[in-house]
């Protein structure tokens, strides 16, 4: 447990004293600002809006494809260095010769990534504050939307951590992660392509867009949560085994 906290703190510190987190934060907020602005101006030009749709629902739900595209860039870039850098520079040797378990190394690093991910999202709460000036905001829906985003981030970052442990090259880790997560995303798009059947159901089930559409309406579908949790735990479990396997390299 000591090891977990020490690694978590070191990882967070390293993320935020180097430019990476700040660059990602800036790029992310510029993109989100542009998306949010166009959604809000679209709604502002509409004379009448039904109860179910509003800028927030559109941003987190129907138009979530934009938001997910930015996540497909930000998450792999955030996780690419987490193990690859330590192995390239050799600091992993100093790290693994202390009395820490591979589990706390992986969890500590992952928790720091997830915290950074949450911190990158935090400024977007201002959008809600801005909307509140001109209308009513359903805080339950806001909460479930962010929960959905956290679930997607948890899954993406877990896969990214695994890919980073697979290679010493940050670039290879980045490309592998993008490939994997883009594949997962495209699988979700299958919902709109395939004829009704098992395969379409499967696509609908793993769809990130589907998840955001549900969560942005305030529907907390437990199956979605279980899916995110499964992907995250599986990724972290395999990462732990990979870290363990370095002893036999």
């Amino acid at each position, binding site marked *: 447990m*000591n090891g977990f906290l*020490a690694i978590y*703190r*070191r990882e967070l510190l*390293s993320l935020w004293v*180097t430019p990476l987190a700040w660059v990602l934060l800036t790029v992310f907020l510029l993109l989100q600002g542009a998306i949010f602005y166009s959604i809000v101006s679209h709604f502002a030009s509409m004379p009448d809006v039904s109860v179910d749709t509003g800028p927030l629902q559109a941003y987190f739900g129907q138009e979530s494809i934009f938001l997910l595209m930015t996540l497909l860039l930000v998450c792999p870039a955030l996780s690419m260095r987490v193990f690859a850098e330590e192995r390239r*520079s050799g*600091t992993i040797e*100093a790290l693994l010769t202390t*009395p820490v378990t591979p589990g706390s190394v992986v969890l500590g690093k992952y928790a720091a990534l997830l915290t950074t991910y949450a911190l990158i999202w935090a400024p977007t709460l201002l959008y809600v504050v801005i909307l509140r000036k001109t209308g009513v905001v359903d805080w339950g829906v806001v909460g479930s939307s962010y929960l959905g985003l956290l679930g997607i981030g948890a899954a993406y970052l877990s896969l990214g951590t695994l890919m980073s442990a697979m290679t010493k090259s940050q670039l290879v880790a980045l490309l592998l992660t993008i490939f994997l997560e883009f594949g997962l995303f495209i699988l979700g798009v299958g919902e709109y392509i395939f004829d009704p059947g098992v395969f379409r159901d499967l696509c609908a089930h793993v769809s990130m867009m589907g998840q955001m559409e549900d969560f942005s309406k305030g529907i907390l579908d437990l199956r979605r949560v279980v899916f995110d949790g499964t992907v995250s735990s599986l990724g972290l479990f395999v990462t732990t085994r990979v870290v363990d396997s370095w002893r036999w390299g």
Partner: protein
Amino acid sequence: MIEVSNLTKDYGTVVAVRELSFSVEKGEIVGFLGPNGAGKSTTLRVLSGFLGATSGRVRIAGHDIAEAPRAARRALGYMPESAPLYPELRVFEYLQFRARLKEVRRDKQRAAIAHAMERAGVAHMASTVIGHLSKGYRQRVALADALVADPPLLILDEPTAGLDPNQIREVRSLIKDLAGERTILLSTHILSEVEATCERAIVIDRGQLVAEGRIEELRGRQKARRLCVRVRDPNGGAEAAISAISGLRLSSFSSEPGAPERRTLHVSLHEELAAEAVIESLVRAFTEAGIGIHALIPEQASLEQVFSALTAHEKAHTGKSEPGSTP
């Protein structure tokens, strides 16, 4: 403190360490010697718990590294080769991180870090970013890291690699200062380093043990002892006088420019002959031949010679063993 028995480590087809056994007692400073690629780093990585052994047993401070890895790692301060550090952190932040990892008690962390920085001579660099430090200072930060939890055993992989002569001297004297209660195992391919800091040496080549013992014992292993003789030899009869004595061999000679009768001869005394008797007969033979002896200097074999003799010998005999390698 360290017990290694029949340690073997292979990387797939390449055997880096083969059936290696040795032990290090409490309080010793032991040099772990070998040419590059002999398997030194691999062995130390196994001892530190970074790599798993293919077969064989390693006990650190009484804990088997396979059965009680965390207890074994708690007992040792390990400094990896080339001292890898996080360049973005400050020295103090890095040592704080390391102290936490090594389970230094929270209320003792500050004192432990201050003490380690003091010992390693980086106290005045506490708030410098590691990336801005010179190689010598980074090496010292890594040393401070090895010391921070005050472990009874230090394993240092090439602690002076890449340092300038002044820094090497400083690191060596630091290592000597650390001796006493602490046990130190340090690897190097520089022999003078072992002669300067260690009491005992373990020599490996191609992953196998070739010699082990106190530095003086190892020096004594050189069978051919050497003698340097400066003479005034007007008749040039020195060669004949030497070859007349059994067990003596003239290995080289030179004359002073402008004074050909003043000569310097290097003689090797062979095998198990008593050196005193041979020297006496040499002096007698020279006096009888009318050669004036100016100086008679026994040359002790340097560890350098012992080392090259040992490793060359080994190569001749294990022609079919695979070369060791470091990943």
